[in-house]
């Protein structure tokens, strides 16, 4: 137990140091922006990893919750006069309620049927967002008011770097702790064998639903942060391709590995930025890199590499 506590503490400490030290080597505010994008995607991916890696349920429509969080902070202040900070909470609560309501029937499904149901849910929500243009600005998107906290106007790439970094730390801390609670253990039991979990008295339906709701709230808060940071939001953030990106981050980094989700986000967010120098070959290379890394590191980057190191250390 002491060792585990230590490991958890070490993970958080290393992450905090990385967040604190990176700005020392950043040559321009562009790097702050890209890094903030990494922290936001990592936050959403950690939530999804709780659902996929720990509870073993797939979601191909998770960007919908990201979109709900993003549009809550866009629509709330603009159309309804809700203060921006409160709109974050409204988005999170909306996402949680929606996940709770649709989670029960959806999570009864298994395998590919669960995949298509979550995919359908995601597509539906994205469609509503891009169609109800009176509220959402339609496919063109809409501007987002700046976030003000206690009279402090949060803006600028550097400021958002620290805000999203702090959010990621909190999200990581919660996820790491969850892993060691009875709920976290129930999730892992579900992942290993649903039947066995049920036999030892785990309320399978309840825990699946909990994981789904937690993942939805993570995505929603990440969405809100991105909307504030960009000052603008469009329906692509809620779309199928963004859902796929989130799932790819989780699987690429390593299912069930929280550090993996952060590494996966770093790879998948910075890669397209780096590949823009190849202009039209960008998508071709991105697809190629996804295929090759999934073939050679099918368990994900972090578990594959740490497995390699452990084997080296033993031999």
């Amino acid at each position, binding site marked *: 137990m002491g060792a585990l506590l230590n490991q958890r503490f070490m993970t958080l400490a290393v992450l905090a140091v990385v967040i604190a030290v990176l700005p020392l080597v950043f040559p321009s505010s562009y790097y702050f922006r890209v890094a903030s994008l990494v922290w936001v995607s990592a936050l959403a991916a950690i939530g999804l990893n709780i659902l996929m890696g720990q509870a073993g349920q797939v979601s191909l429509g998770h960007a919908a919750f990201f979109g709900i969080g993003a549009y809550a902070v866009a629509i709330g202040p603009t159309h309804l006069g809700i203060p921006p900070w409160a709109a974050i909470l409204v988005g999170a609560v909306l996402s949680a309620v929606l996940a709770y309501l649709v989670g029960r029937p959806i999570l009864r499904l298994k395998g590919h049927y669960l995949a298509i149901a979550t995919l*359908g849910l995601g597509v539906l929500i994205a469609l509503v967002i891009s169609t109800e243009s009176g509220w959402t600005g339609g496919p063109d998107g809409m501007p987002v008011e700046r976030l003000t906290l206690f009279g402090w106007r949060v803006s600028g790439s550097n400021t958002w770097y620290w805000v999203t970094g702090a959010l990621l730390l909190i999200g990581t801390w919660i996820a790491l702790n969850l892993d060691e609670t009875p709920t976290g253990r129930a999730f892992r039991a579900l992942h290993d064998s649903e039947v066995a979990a049920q036999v030892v008295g785990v309320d399978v339906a309840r825990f699946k639903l909990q994981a789904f709701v937690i993942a939805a709230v993570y995505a929603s808060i990440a969405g809100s942060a991105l909307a504030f940071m960009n000052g603008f939001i469009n329906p692509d953030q809620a779309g199928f391709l963004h859902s796929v990106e989130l799932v*790819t981050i989780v699987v690429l980094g390593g299912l069930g590995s929280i550090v993996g989700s952060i590494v996966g986000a770093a790879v998948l967010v910075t890669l397209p930025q780096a590949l823009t120098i190849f202009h039209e070959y960008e998508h071709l290379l991105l697809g190629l890199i996804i295929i090759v890394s999934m073939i050679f590191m099918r368990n994900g980057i972090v578990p594959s590499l740490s497995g390699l190191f452990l084997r080296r250390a033993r031999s």
Partner: protein
Amino acid sequence: MAEFLQFLISGLTVGAVYALVALGFTLIYNASGVVNFAQGEFVMLGGMVTVFASAAGVPLPLAAVVAVVAAVAVGLLLHRFAIEPARGASAVTLIIITIGASILLRGLAAIIFDKQFHKLPGFTGEAPIDVLGAAVQPQSFWVLGGTAVVVVALYVFLEHTLLGKAVLATAANRLAARLVGINTTTIMALAFGGSAAIGAIAGILVTPITLTNYDVGTLLALKGFAAAMLGGMGNPLGAVVGGLLLGLLEAFGAGYLSSTYKDAFAFLVILIVLFAAPQGLFGRRAVERV
């Protein structure tokens, strides 16, 4: 009545394309257990290669053959270099590989061809035919007829040839199939090639009606996957029925309810069907082995 008929025929036409995509999905899924999200790219390739080959002066029928051959080659390469090396990986990993393949193919198409929309001329003219008051494009009959031919040909192949039966055996039980001497790797390659051909044919047939560009594959793959699930994954007949049903739903939904939410009906119905029948309409109730 004329309006109803109009929606019916346009629904069946779109549905036939969904059915072909779903059929391709099912073929690959049955042979290899892979859900191939690059299925829509075969449809895109079918349309795009035909457009560019015929623009280069190749007569249309020959251009169509070239397109099918190109798609089959891509399907075989996909199997050889992306699916085969990842044998034994988890279902989600394989899904992500096929999504990576679809991003790659889309990027490749944007470079080799372009990002514009393209149209093919109707195979037998463009003048609408009057069917009991409904104006029907002659190409609709080509789509419906072509789909029927593909479905019948696939049925005959699977049920009445030795190779087809080997495909069915591999689908039923891969290990047992290998034990009786079936080369399951060849069968899987065959499934990818066949599925690519079916997708390309769908793309060629429908391009005169819906246009094509490098990006049409994504939504088609989603709809095809949805159609396959609606019918019950792994059931070829279910895939065809699911596809037609999805097309009809969209056409009638767009016609009578709301055209802006055309794409929503399909997914709404799928959610409702899955809530009521978690194995799809024609799926077998799975018994879980512990």
